[in-house]
């Protein structure tokens, strides 16, 4: 598996909006399943048929397709608008003129990574809020706070050398 350098970042950014709303492992898998159906369906359609669209209307067509799928998500699946944001973030780069085989392979692996991250975050939230009752770790903000602390603490501990000598 070899992703483009931006592949992981896109998927991570796409997961964050839904990370806020999913509460369990199963709800994460459920959300991922619904979104992957749209992502792979729209993605493969546009990778295969992008030359059939007028060049200046290609992105508009993509957004029209996303808008109709978003209507399905909101009306039929009771998904929040955050799910639509995830889908838009995932679909970035689908209309780029790149080799189709590589794009489809990326599409597949990015989808699998997205589902795994979403289910993982759902399970993590279920575990921390259920078994440990750690309210701080229920929300992404708590994790970001902890990560920021972890990044800042080594710098705080690293004291500048005051003087030389002393006990050697």
């Amino acid at each position, binding site marked *: 598996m070899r992703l483009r350098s931006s592949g992981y970042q896109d998927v991570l950014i796409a997961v964050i909006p839904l990370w806020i709303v999913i509460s369990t492992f199963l709800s994460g898998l459920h959300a991922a399943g619904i979104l992957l159906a749209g992502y792979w369906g729209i993605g493969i359609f546009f990778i295969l048929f992008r030359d059939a669209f007028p060049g200046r209307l290609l992105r508009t*067509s993509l957004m029209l397709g996303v808008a109709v799928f978003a209507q399905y998500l909101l009306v039929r*699946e009771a998904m929040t608008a955050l799910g639509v944001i995830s889908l838009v973030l995932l679909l970035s780069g689908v209309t780029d003129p790149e080799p189709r085989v590589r794009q489809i392979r990326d599409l597949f692996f990015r989808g699998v990574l997205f589902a795994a991250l979403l289910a993982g975050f759902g399970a993590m939230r279920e575990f921390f809020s*259920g078994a440990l009752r750690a309210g701080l770790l229920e929300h992404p903000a708590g994790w970001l706070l902890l990560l920021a602390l972890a990044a800042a603490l080594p710098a705080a501990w690293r004291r500048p050398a005051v003087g030389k000598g002393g006990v050697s």
Partner: protein
Amino acid sequence: MSAAGLREAGRYLFFLIYAAALAAFAGMLRDLPPAGTRPAAEKVPAAFWQNTFPEADGQPGADSVGLEGREIYAAWRYDAAAPGFRNLEGVAFFQSAGSPSGKVKVLIAFDTRGKILGLHLASHRAPWGLGKYFLEQREYFDFYQGLTLEDLERAAAEGRLPEVPRMRGTSRAVNAAVFQGLRFFAQHQAALMERFLADAGAAAGANPVLLFEEPQVPLPPAALPEPVQEPEVMILPAPPGHGRE
């Protein structure tokens, strides 16, 4: 017209067909029933709602009696001061209710006079992210504690029925389920007491009538683990120097 122009015209034609297909799909979506009338999008496990009272056995068995196609369970109160003992306080059964924007299944427990002992939300349908939020509204669920059908009807007439913000549909579904449950109890009170007391009391191995007259009489533990024996505390002499300067 040149070949390039024809190709470009074909592309615009493809775009028009694509847009028409999207419009047809969107129109089809509009005609479908909304999400609330379908099974749960996010089904929240009941484990999140840690309502230990009343505790009714979820499995049909010794404690359940069938009545008009539904299982009636025993509502036990477990005594924290006397582990291993429990008091039979009433009956409990599941009640489902649905509205276009919410569908719930609630386990409601009643005492012998039809007063609500407690609610246990078994499952409900909620928009993503709001399922757990609903279960956290303890004040909402506490509202029903101790209410009778008359109390609830009075509250409804005065417009005092509670609603969880952002989850009006689910709140109304819970209200409807409670109303239906109370009415079922009122209609079948005699049968419930008679059949339930005979079966559950026999299963518990005690005189059922006595249980309801004397609700504080502890039942022998039917299927409960033995109470844990506390180890005896040994008081050791304090080590020399302890407690001195």
